């Protein structure tokens, strides 16, 4: 609750203080505006460039005159390249990954939050320890392992190893801890099985956290580059980041193709932004949930 007027006597400031406050506010606003412009400019530039034809793209600094606007870049994108196929690959891999992660992490998080069992401390300790390790440590042996399982250059190789997310478990555990135990007890008295408690009570209550998790997991999988790059070799299996990287090499300097590259980039970026617009609040809450408490 902000206090509008202070009742205790504050040394009455002369006009100078008010003026310097005003200047301070002006400076602050200016900085924020400039920062905002810098933050948004590249994205707007990208959007603007995707509707320019191949001459304007190079010569116009930023926007082209509206009469020149064209959708040819997007058309070429779908017609001349297999962007559509790759887009679908990404949709498939990311959505399946998110759902799998969601299921496993929320279930295990629930188990860790609301139950006591033998080995719980061990499991949590080991998971915590591995969180400290950077992922690159396991890339080489994982590739070796997947090779022997015949999952290299296949979707399973991307989806299955990433089904385990320690970060997700802790996120859910943290949030489920806050669900009042009385609710669960009441349900048990009513005859609910444990799984139904999870399914019908805890999950619906946790929807905000689920929303945040979905967005985070979606972003992580959709934008993931290094691991798919290592695992996927045949372009049938490419996801958007790898394909765009190849486009960049092939098309960025070829005739008239910068527009196609930028159009592809724009479309790749759009889904996450759209998702974010819908899940903003949950996301910010979820992101900071673990951090603020330290």
């Amino acid at each position, binding site marked *: 609750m902000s206090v509008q007027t202070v009742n205790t006597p504050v040394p009455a400031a002369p006009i100078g203080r008010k003026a310097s406050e005003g200047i301070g506010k002006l400076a602050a606003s200016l900085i924020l505006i400039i920062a905002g412009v810098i933050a948004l400019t590249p994205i707007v530039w990208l959007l603007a460039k995707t509707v320019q034809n191949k001459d304007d793209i190079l010569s116009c600094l930023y926007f082209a005159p509206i009469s020149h606007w064209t959708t040819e870049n997007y058309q070429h994108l779908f017609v001349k390249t297999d962007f559509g196929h790759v887009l679908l690959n990404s949709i498939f891999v990311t*959505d399946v990954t998110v759902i799998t992660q969601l299921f496993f992490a929320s279930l295990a998080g629930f188990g860790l939050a609301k139950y006591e069992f033998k080995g719980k401390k061990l499991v949590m300790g080991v998971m915590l320890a591995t969180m400290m390790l950077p992922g690159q440590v396991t890339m080489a042996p994982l590739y070796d392992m997947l090779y022997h399982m015949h999952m290299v250059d296949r979707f399973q190789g991307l989806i299955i190893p990433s089904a385990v997310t320690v970060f997700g478990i802790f996120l859910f555990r943290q949030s489920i801890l806050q669900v009042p135990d009385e609710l669960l007890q009441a349900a048990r008295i009513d005859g609910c099985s444990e799984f139904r408690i999870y399914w019908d009570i805890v999950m619906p209550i946790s929807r905000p956290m689920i929303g945040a998790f*979905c967005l985070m997991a979606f972003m992580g999988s959709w934008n993931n580059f290094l691991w798919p790059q290592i695992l996927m070799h045949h372009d049938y299996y490419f996801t958007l980041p790898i394909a765009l990287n190849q486009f960049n090499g092939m098309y960025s300097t070829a*005739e008239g193709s910068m527009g196609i590259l930028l159009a592809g980039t724009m479309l790749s970026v759009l889904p996450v932004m759209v998702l974010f617009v*819908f899940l903003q609040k949950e996301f910010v809450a979820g992101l900071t949930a673990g951090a603020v408490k330290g």
Partner: protein
Amino acid sequence: MNLFPYGKAALSMFGLAVLSAGWIFVHPAPEKKATLTYWTFSKDHYDAYQKLIPDFEAQHPGVHVDLEIVNNNALAARLQAAFLSDLDVPDMTELEIGTAGTMFRGPVKDIGFIDLKPRLMQSGLYDRYVQSRFSPYTSRGGIYGLPQDVHPVQLVYNKEIFAKYNIDPDKIQTWDDFIAAGKKVTIPGKQYMIELSDSTTGSGGLETIMLQRGGSYFDPAGKCIIDSDVMVKSMEFYVPLVAGPNKIGGTTGDFYGATWSKSVEDGYVASMICPDWRTLFVQRGPTKMAGKMGIMPLPAAVPGGIRTSTWGGTMLGITKRCKDPDIAWQFAQFLYTDKARLAKNFQQTNILPPLKEAWSNPAFSAPNPYYGGAPLGAIYAKYAPSVPAQYTAPTIDTAKAKLGEALIDCVKYYNDNGDKGFDEFVRAKLKEKADDVRAFQARNPY
């Protein structure tokens, strides 16, 4: 009981997952049904070969050739990964000269390609080709690739700019002549005599120049010779062209594409090093220069020296995975030894084949209007036999990278200090880089 308790976002993702899974199920990965899978990285090759394949299949009923285009950046990596991890290995593949050496890393028995030497000798092709072109694909006595080209290099120049400064290309015999002319033409920041890079060695830069002078990354035995005397001298010749007060070389950083085309049309560079394949890029890119570009031989390093060098190259390899190497060899011959077909290929790609007898076909002497009616093929054919050899080793990509680093350091040194102490610096730098490459070679446990 809730049907789906996770909320709308998760539900929509679930729905998408199901839909996309369905689609993918309906469009599975293409099965390898062809008799021969052939990988190429060049769209031009792809288009040209697509037209030729039906003839081959007609001659060999039951044989089906599947042509696939793979991005060049990815081709070597994919091939390497495929060899190492038993993934889809094609039967035949094209491979770029710069990366071919990396395929020779392990013991000879692990090389993924078939040794073509017996077939080359038996068919007599070995003698009918420009022999220096086998060197980049040779390892420990075996020849693992069929060269597809010679790629002699000439200088393509802007006739208008040359005329404006009264420069007669016929009077330019050596690099000294060229540099003198260059001083007249160059306006720093606006117009450069020749397109040369101060940061990359490929792309017609240091590599091409050093090859002309007899320089090389490796000797025929595969030992690294980056720090040899010839290389030192080549570096000392090249750097002042692109750095320091008298530089005549400039570049926008791209060597093809929209930005580059515009710079050529704007007259940012008055001439550029052009192998046969690049003449097509020039025709297609800066289209406004049609009729205004001329071709002249590369200035000689010494009076009477060779007037050409080489840039680029592609080999055709048959992998050990191929079930019927004989049919693969026949396809290779079909594409690369039939004179009529080679002529057709030239018409589409401007590329000279390494088969010497093919050059007498009239298609090669046809005048090319973009270059003011010059007979492109004949010009390049004239210099093809003197194209220098290039020796390779498994550490070729390390060697190239190291030379690039050396170039950047030498350019920086020259920009800061000029000629003072330049020779010592270049020698020390090249030795340092050569030692790096040797350390890498020593590490190979196979």
